[in-house]
Structures are given as structure tokens and as C-alpha cells.
């Protein structure tokens, strides 16, 4: 049965590739006299771990394939339909089917979660109808609504959930943001004033047609696969991340409302945002018996006990107001740096009564409860293009630096919130340039968690042979001085990877 399923998958993938590589469907079509655009890509990525420990594998770690198709049909000048579908398969489960190390570490048991993304909402990415009469825009269907200004940290952008089950490695937009069923209405009134160039109002309603939350990295090799974090437990490993998480009932609960005012005034882009809905990530707490071994896998391959946490949780209310601001700082342009002025992007959010998991650190057993606090998050980004002739005589360097701050307004005095202090700080830095007429693009990204003094580095080299073929060689390195804290949870995941992508249309 399994072989049959594998064969069907393989044939599907092969057929899709064969069909889409032919030029026939790479063309713009005319359907009923109206333009239909079809595009897509196929990617195959291989990643190789450099460490050998219980939570990872030395050598081949993943063989992730993505087949993506999208189409945009302009029914009339004011009405269009866009849809995209995707098939994601990690062939590692087939390639390591009989690998003893892979099986002993329980990675094979994560197959149901990570081998094939076969749920309807994973295959059907977007399907939306857009109607744009006059100064209005109405959009209904499975879609993405993206708020915020920062490229690195996600502060205001809370409407769509994320899929991060496969970590941070070379994420594609289409594999990371999960489109959900939404209704959106925009209104752009005509503006006559000289100081206000543009104004827009945006309303978003999520009727909770289907509750799709964040797909976070899961703890335990049997659930989280190769990306399970290295949670340090004395004499034990986490095996799964079982939890009884209650979700809002479709249609009846979990309705979400978002409203945004967008203005282009005095040369700056400004927005004011309001949101009432559900947190896309669950809050969970351990409940008795807290953690337990479960047959048949009592002991791990290294002799440690395998534990299964018992948790319950929910998706709590999320209510916030916020603002964003973007402005080019033209007085800061420096001729010797290439004369491009830096652009500043800022966003801030104040969430009321957010729910957190509080852990009593004085208790001899896991004593957790849910507690509430207001939550303030802000971030600032400086985007700057500079010319550094000794390193690149022809092309500029793009430098993006970000600083993120989060404050838990009513932080408990005795208890702790997992992974958060009262004040939390992170930074993000990304640098890239290109050589050989934009063919070779090296980039370097560094995320630093100041509270835990941990780091995440991503060096990457992309070779764009042409508009069809793209090759990526990259790596990722985690480091930190406090084991088990912050980004060091992934310090065994250091990897190098290679990806080939073919894009058409």
C-alpha cells in the first residue's frame, strides 16, 4: 500500500514536471478573449547535517521538493481570479526508509507530519476573486493579507498563520505564509490636498471558515522530525509533542476583524492598525502526569528515556492596536557611499490581555498555568544601499538592519514565561550584493537574540543562470553561550544545503 502511494506521488510529481517544463503552458493564454497568466516552479533541495547527535543526522537531512503552479485570470478589467496550488514532498522519508540511525532516532515516525503536505489547505494555497469597482476593492477567498513594514521580524503581520515546521532554511514565500479564508474590502478616496497624497481604508474579516493555526516546529523527533529542537532534559529526550489543543468552532467562534488606515503623506507611508481575533499560536500547559514514557519506544538509541509531554492548550484572543511608518531620510545620503539615502521602517503593536503560559520555577514539579498581560512589541529597520568599490565595483550592497523589542507589561514576579523575559531584544542584519550582471548573489544574514546571547547565521550564494534556472548553495550555523536557551535549541542543526529551482512563465 505504501509502495503504491509512493508510486502515485512519484508519478504525479513526474507528470507535473514534464507538463510544466514544456513551453505550452508557460505561455500567456487568451480565454474568452481575456488574458490568463500561468506560472510555476519546481524546486528540489538537499540539506546535509554536519553534526551527529540524537536530534539530528550527520549527512543527508532532507530532500524537499516543491511543485508550485499559479494562475491569474482577468475576467473583466475590474474582476480577476487568482489561484495557486502546491505539492510539497520531503523525499527523505523514502530515501531513509531502511536507515537504522534514522529509524532509531524516531525520525521516521514524523513521516505523517512532514513527508507529504497533503491537506487541502496545504495543496490549495490561494483561491480568490477580486473585484475593483471605482475606488473600491473587494477580495474574497483563500488569501494572504500582509501588514507591517519590517522584512525580518514579524510584528504587525498577524493575520495569516505561518508554516515553520521545516525550520528557517531557505524558506520560499509560498511555503511559509499560509493563506486563509478571508473577506477584504479596501476603499481609496480621491485626495485633493497637497500634503496628503494617498489614503486607503482596509477592512478584513475572517469568518473562521476553517481554523488553520501556525504550524510551528514541533518538539520531539517523532513529531518534529529533523527540526525538533534540542530540549535538554536530564537523562531523557522528548519523543513527541502531544497536546490537547482546543480550537475555535468553525464559523461560530474565532471570527477575526482587522482594520487599517493607510496614508501616503509628506513623503512618508503611515498606517494605523486594529485587530481583534485569535492568536495563531497556541498557549499550552503541562497537565498531570506531565511527562510519561509510552511503549513501545521507552528508551532512545542512546539509552536515555523517551518522554511524552501531556499538555492542554487553546488559541487565545489577540487584540491589538498598532502603527507603522516608513520614510526615506534623504538628508543622510552620502555621496561617497553611493548617494542612496537610508530608508527607515518602523512598526509598533500594543496587544491587550495576551495569554501566556506561566511556569512556577520554585515548584519541584511542572507547575504551569495561563496568565494574562499586555504585550508591547516594536521594531525598527534601516534599509540602506551603499557602494563599496573595493568589494564590488559595479553593484551596490543592500544592507538591512533591524532591532526588535518586546516588553511583557505585567511580567509575573515569581513565575516565568517560557522563552520570554520582561524585556526582550533581538537584532537582524542582512547584507547582499550581486556580481556578473546580477547572476551571482551572495548574501549573509545574522539574527542575534540579545537576551540569550545566541546567534543564527545564514550564508548563501545564489546563481541565476537565466530566468528559468536558479541554483542555491547555502548553510546555517547556530551558536550561543547558554545551552538550551534561545537559538541554541537548534545548535545541532548546522547544515549546508543545495537547491535547484526551475521557474516557468
Amino acid at each position, binding site marked *: 500500500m505504501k509502495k503504491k502511494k509512493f508510486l502515485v506521488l512519484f508519478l504525479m510529481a513526474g507528470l507535473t514536471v514534464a507538463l510544466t517544463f514544456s513551453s505550452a503552458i508557460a505561455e500567456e493564454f487568451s480565454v474568452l478573449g481575456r488574458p490568463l497568466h500561468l506560472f510555476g516552479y519546481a524546486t528540489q533541495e538537499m540539506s546535509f547535517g554536519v553534526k551527529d547527535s540524537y536530534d539530528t543526522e550527520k549527512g543527508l537531512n532532507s530532500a524537499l521538493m516543491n511543485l508550485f503552479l499559479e494562475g491569474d485570470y482577468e475576467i473583466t478589467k475590474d474582476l480577476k481570479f487568482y489561484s495557486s496550488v502546491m505539492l510539497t514532498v520531503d523525499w527523505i522519508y523514502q530515501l531513509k526508509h531502511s536507515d537504522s540511525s534514522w529509524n532509531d532516532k524516531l525520525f521516521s515516525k514524523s513521516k505523517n507530519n512532514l513527508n507529504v503536505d497533503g491537506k487541502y489547505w496545504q495543496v490549495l494555497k490561494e483561491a480568490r476573486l*477580486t473585484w475593483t469597482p471605482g475606488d473600491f476593492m473587494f477580495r474574497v477567498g483563500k488569501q494572504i493579507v500582509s501588514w507591517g513594514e519590517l522584512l525580518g521580524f514579524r510584528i504587525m503581520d498577524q493575520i495569516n498563520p505561518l508554516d515553520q515546521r521545516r525550520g528557517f532554511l531557505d524558506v520560499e514565500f509560498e511555503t511559509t505564509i499560509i493563506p486563509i479564508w478571508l473577506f477584504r474590502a479596501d476603499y481609496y478616496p480621491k485626495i485633493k490636498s497637497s500634503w496628503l497624497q494617498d489614503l486607503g481604508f482596509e477592512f478584513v474579516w475572517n469568518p473562521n471558515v476553517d481554523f488553520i493555526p501556525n504550524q510551528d516546529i514541533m518538539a520531539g523527533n517523532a513529531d518534529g522530525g529533523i527540526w525538533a529542537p534540542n530540549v535538554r532534559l536530564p537523562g531523557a529526550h522528548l519523543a513527541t509533542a502531544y497536546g490537547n489543543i482546543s480550537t475555535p468552532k468553525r464559523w461560530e467562534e474565532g471570527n477575526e476583524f482587522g482594520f487599517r488606515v493607510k496614508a501616503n503623506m509628506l513623503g512618508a507611508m503611515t498606517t494605523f492598525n486594529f485587530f481583534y481575533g485569535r492568536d495563531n499560536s497556541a498557549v499550552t500547559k503541562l497537565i498531570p502526569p506531565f511527562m510519561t514514557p509510552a511503549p513501545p519506544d521507552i528508551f532512545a538509541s542512546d539509552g536515555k528515556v523517551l518522554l511524552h509531554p501531556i499538555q492542554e492548550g487553546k488559541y487565545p484572543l489577540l487584540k491589538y492596536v498598532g502603527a507603522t511608518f516608513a520614510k526615506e531620510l534623504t538628508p543622510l545620503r552620502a555621496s561617497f557611499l553611493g548617494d542612496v539615502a537610508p530608508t527607515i521602517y518602523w512598526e509598533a503593536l500594543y496587544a491587550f490581555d495576551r495569554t501566556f503560559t506561566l511556569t512556577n520555577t520554585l515548584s519541584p514539579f511542572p507547575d504551569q498555568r495561563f496568565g494574562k498581560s499586555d504585550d508591547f512589541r516594536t521594531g525598527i529597520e534601516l534599509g540602506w544601499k551603499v557602494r563599496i568599490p573595493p568589494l564590488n565595483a559595479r553593484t551596490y550592497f543592500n544592507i538591512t538592519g533591524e532591532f526588535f523589542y518586546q516588553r511583557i507589561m505585567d511580567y509575573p514576579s515569581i513565575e516565568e514565561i517560557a522563552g520570554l523575559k520582561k524585556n526582550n531584544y533581538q537584532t537582524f542584519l542582512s547584507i547582499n550584493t550581486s556580481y556578473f550582471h546580477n547572476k551571482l548573489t551572495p548574501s549573509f544574514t545574522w539574527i542575534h537574540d540579545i537576551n540569550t546571547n545566541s546567534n543564527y547565521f545564514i550564508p548563501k550564494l545564489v546563481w541565476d543562470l537565466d530566468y528559468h534556472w536558479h541554483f542555491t548553495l547555502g548553510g546555517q550555523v547556530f551558536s550561543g553561550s547558554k545551552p538550551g536557551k534561545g537559538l541554541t535549541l537548534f545548535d545541532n542543526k548546522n547544515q549546508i544545503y543545495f537547491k535547484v529551482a526551475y521557474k516557468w512563465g
Partner: protein
Amino acid sequence: MKKVKIFVVCFWVLFLTLSAMLPILWAAEEYKVTAQDLEQYKKIVDDPRPYLKELTYKKILPPDVYAKLTFDVEEMKVQWAEVVGFRAPDEVGKIAPEIKPGTYSYKDKAKYPGLKELMIPLHYEEFFKPGGPPFVGCFPEIKVVPTRQYYLALPIAKATKENIGRTKLDDKGLIKEETYMAGVPFPKPEGKFKANQVIYNLLKRYIGHENQYFTATTRGFTRNLRIDQDMVNEACWIRFKGRVFMEPYGWYDERAKSVGEEFSFKFFYLSPRDMFGNVMTSMKYLDPDKYDQMLLYISALRRVRLMSATDIQDSIGGADVIYADSFIYSQKLSSTIFPYRSEVIAEREYLVPFAILDGSGYMSSKGMELHDYEWERRPMYVVKMTQLDKNFVYSYRILYIDKETFYPLLILNYDQKGRLYRSGLVISAYFPEMGMFNYTSDVMMYDHLDMHSSFSRTFVIPAPWVGRKDINMRGLVVKGK
């Protein structure tokens, strides 16, 4: 359950309303020519069809729009000759008079040494030869035709005459914007700032009618002539000041006047896949010291993002142009932001592929050669613009500008080491019944250092239906993915 019913009812109401409105929406359809339409009349390579004989404005435009934009040809000829003070056929024929209309092969170089004197050196040395790496756009043979008189439309001639002598430059050679109203500001350039006057004529030229819609197909080529870019885009354009063809005349609106908006365009990509759904708007201001504003809808982020308007020197996505090279040359003259010292270094006739009349010129897939373009003697200004800021990407630019119409043909941009860095050749279509060069054109852009080149074909239609709604935030969101 009640909410389910309400949602389903709302969905069907919306759906049925849209369905009911479809016929109305069809009826109100904006007319335009897409890249796919253009491809039916002329393929990007190996297609010698004279497509402009078939794809005519008379067929495309509504009759009332067409009637408003066409004028009496003979009157235009007379009026324009009065505006500039000459007719091109009377001004040429003095250099290498032995070169008569006919077809000349690159093999004839020795037989007709006058060709060397008559042609622009770059053309003669680098592109008058059989096609082949590293660049597209060689002419193995050229078809020389008699020089024509090119005239501009009656409204341009009228506005130019009405405002003759009124447009002033300050003591730095920069235009006093309040003195310019419409038309060509300096139809007979002269005096200390003659070069600046020529450049202002170019900057203020009517690149087509005031509201227009573009479609363009661009192919990029490596030094081995392998295609590495294949791009389709469309664009909208509005000119805000000096409007003479389309209502409202003069200023587009009060806001344009109070803010000092010159023109704005929206540029959106239809392919390749990574670019599809990206939309850019740019607002250009009259104030020489005020930067443009650029907004970009980034399809990969589903967001509108404010972009750096000072980022004018970096290549755009691997293309052979920088933002300051838009429309071959669009950099404002300023005394503070990358100031130039400009001079007319030559004023003479050249044999050039100046205009497209019937569209029979084409690129061949073999060697990416250009065939069937018509070359004619044109009186030209050669303007050298020396950059005074040593940090600018170019140390100087040389512009070849037609003396009769002030339309640019060729630009040569030299880096700070004095090497030819980028060049661009625009062969624009001319519409005699309208007296108009717009950006319907075949454009060759070259990066001489990276040995990369591109060929682009653009088709433009006058489009009174283009408005602010198309170039503002709404326009970005609606056109974005």
C-alpha cells in the same frame, strides 16, 4: 449555523451581483494592446512584417479619440518648420554627399569611405557588421532612405509658438519652472546655456500623449547571446503639466499644480514568474532638488513598500539600465544633486536609424542582427554632459539628439575611468497623421563592461482612461499579485 447561512447568502449575493454586472463591465472595457496582441502582429524575432500598417491607431482608438489626436499633415509641416526655423531635408547632404539612398553592406566600408564620416563612430565601428557575440543589434547592411521632415503635432507647435521666449533659465542654467507653460521650451537653442536648452527640450518633450498605456517585451542576452531575461511589462503614464492634447489642458489638476508634479507612471510586470505581480509607481516632481517618490508593491511580500527614491544609480534587476537612464535619459538638471556641466560638442548631420514608419524593421534569431530599419541623414546635436560629482556612476554622458524634433536617438554613458559603460539606442515609431513620436519603439540597451545587452519592443496607445486611480496606492494594490 445562522452565521453560516448569512455568509453563504452574502457570498451568493456578491457572486450574482458580479455576474449581473458582467455585461456592463464588458461594455465599459478599457481599450489597450497587450503583449500578446502585439505578438500577433509582430513577433519579437524573425518577423519582417510591417506591423504598424496593420496595428494602426485608427483601428485601436475610439473614433472620437483618434479624431482629436490627428491633424492636417500639411499644416503641421508648415507650422513646425516655422517653430524650429528649418526643414531637415534642407539641412543635410553636406557630409559625404556621395552616400545616396540605397542599401549598403558592411562589406562596402572600403568602397564608401564616406560612411565612416557620416555615421556615429560607435555605429560604424561596433555595430555595422554581421551579428554575433558579444552584443545584439548589429546591422550587416543598412537601408538608406531620403531625409524626411519630421514635424510635431499642431497643439505642440501652437503651444511652443505661444510661449516662445517666455521660458527662462537662471544664472546656473536651470529652468525657472514658473516660466514654462507648454510645448517645446527652447525651439531655437542659443546662447551661453545652449546645451541646457537642448536638454530641457528633451526632458520636456512629449513622449507620446499625456495619458497613455504601454506594453513592452524585453529580452536580455549574455555575452554569448544566450537569452537570460524574458520580460513582459505594461505601464500607465500621466503628464501633469503642459498638457495640450487631452483634457484637462495645462495642469492636470490643482494638486499637481500645488505640489509641482511633472509626470507619474506605473510599471507592472506580467512575466517572468518572479516579477509577475510586482508593481512600481514613480512620481516625478518639477523641483530640481526634490527626489521622486517610488512605491513598490512587492508580490513576494504582498505589501506596498516605500522605496528609496535616491537609488537611481544601481542596475534595475540585472537590466542594462539604471533608473537615471529611464526613457534613455531622464535625470533632472540640478545644481545640488549630481550637477552637470553641459556643452554642445557637435552640431552636424549623421546617418542614423532614426524612426520607424511601418514597423518592418526586425531582429533575426541568427546573430541577433537588425534588418530593414531605415537609415537617414539627420541634423543632430551632440551634447556632452560632464558630471561634476566624482561619486556618480558616470563621469560623462554623450547624447545624440535630433535637431528638428529634440527626440533622443543614442546615449553613451562613460564610467569614472572613462570607459564606455552603458549605451542605449532608441528607434522610435513616428505617426505622421498625429505628428507624434511616442515610446512605441525598438530599444537596444548595452552594458559594455559586463558585455550584456537587451532588446525591447514597446507599443504605446494614447489612453484618456488612465487616471490617478491607476497610479496611486489603489493602482498598486489592484494590479499587484
